[in-house]
């Protein structure tokens, strides 16, 4: 089995322990340098399956604001971030929008929806 080591800095707290992670065949076999268990679990997750919440804002038509802020409803694989950003190009929401409304379903094939994080009322025009 190929063995690999990676250096990462723990982000769980301000201490920022420099950690060395040993991977064998894609599995974490050793975590060194951490000073608490949170470091170990962060290291494992970050090396095997790193995920992120992605936030953005998209234009909204007919609303009281020009833009509506959005996010992935839960975290998506880190590797899917560029596709997620691309998928938001050209997306325009329509007012009214409520927090939690799905703006883009199943973004970039991740199975995760892009949802609104702000209410946008319809702008009354006469």
């Amino acid at each position: 089995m190929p063995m690999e080591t990676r250096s990462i800095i723990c982000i769980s707290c301000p201490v920022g322990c420099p950690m060395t992670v040993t991977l064998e065949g894609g599995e974490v076999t050793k975590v060194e340098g951490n000073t608490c268990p949170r470091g170990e679990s962060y290291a494992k997750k970050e090396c095997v399956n790193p995920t992120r919440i992605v936030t953005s804002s998209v234009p909204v038509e007919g609303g009281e604001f020009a833009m509506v802020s959005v996010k992935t409803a839960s975290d998506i694989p880190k590797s899917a971030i560029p596709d997620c950003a691309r998928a938001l190009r050209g997306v325009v929401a329509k007012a009214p929008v409520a927090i939690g409304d799905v703006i883009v379903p199943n973004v970039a094939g991740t199975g995760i929806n892009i949802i609104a994080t702000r209410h946008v009322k319809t702008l009354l025009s006469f």
Partner: protein
Amino acid sequence: MKSMKQIDIVIIGGGPAGMAAAVGAKEAGCDNILILERDTMLGGILNQCIHNGFGLHMFKEELTGPEYAQRYMDQVEALAIPYKLNTMVLDISPDKVVTAVNPEDGLMQIQAKAVILAMGCRERPRGAINIEGTRCAGIYTAGTAQKYVNMNGYMPGKEVVVLGSGDIGLIMARRMTLEGAKVKAVVELMPYSGGLKRNIAQCLDDYDIPLHYSHTVTNIKGRERVESVTIAKVDASLRPIPGTEQEIPCDTLLLSVGLLPENELSQSAGVELSPITGGPVVNESLETELDGVFACGNVLHVHDLVDYVSEESYAAGQNAAAYATGRQFTGDRIPLRPRDGVRYTVPSAINPDNIDKFAIVRFRVDNIYRDRDLAVYFGENRVMKKRKQILAPGEMETLRIPKSWFEENTGCDAITIRLEA
């Protein structure tokens, strides 16, 4: 001009601090509250902070800025607390007459029983840090860029250098990258970042954006729009080292070089400010040196997490409500003395009679410290010693001082908070 309105508590600012203060005041039984907000909506700066990471302490879940703001807007609505938008306060007099304007009401003068200062803070501009070079277009504070991108949907630049690794700068480095810009470098004067570790990992490392510690921007070139910036390494006294200059072509320089509490109104009222925090000097009840004028949130001292702003402001609201019904927070106070690495404390003095179970003291340190004892002395008597693995200027620390310590140390003339090896 209409006759003067009488309001029990006037809250200046409808951001996270103002809203939480309003909720605190209302829940303490005050029914005559008015929030004055200069923007077109409540929520303050949270409206443009569309990233996640808010609310872990307060709501035990990770929210974006607008979502966090909405939680409090919902409470303000549910409690039917009145507020006025588009309203700029022009003056607060020492006897608590608040003068404000908006397009609908014209000029308003309100006699308040209590005033809560919740105006927040602003970013340090370029002039405050004196970078040499031209004064062309393309130089923005990170927050201004954030407003353009997140609220207006426009990009202020394509090729970006960020000066300062405060959280807004880091967040904007990622944000502009995701919108198609190239962030060429983040430059930090200090040998450490004032931003969160998580933001360095997830805003810079994830996108291979280089972070240069102990570097600064020494020059800006460009006649009409920024064409390049020069960065250089700095020595221990933070002076650029000749010969280390490096010119980076770019069209934009974002500044994330610190936040300053916005206290012009406080000064108009005659509130005394701390030269260290830039915010009002307050007692344990978050009351300024001016009776009945309270302060909370970033106008008091710049916080790291909005959760603490909400917590502090809720308390300020409760105290203001008590004041409005006749309670006085006067009496003998014991001064707090920040020493040996502790830069300041909020409050700066405590009257034990005014605390219930414990007093909350927030402070920051002046440098990175590893493996130090945080010690609290009542007079000469050390009442607490706690090992801290790390203390950093970017993190606000919170201490709870139990009432019992005051009872056990009667007659003490000062409380010292210090770091010990």
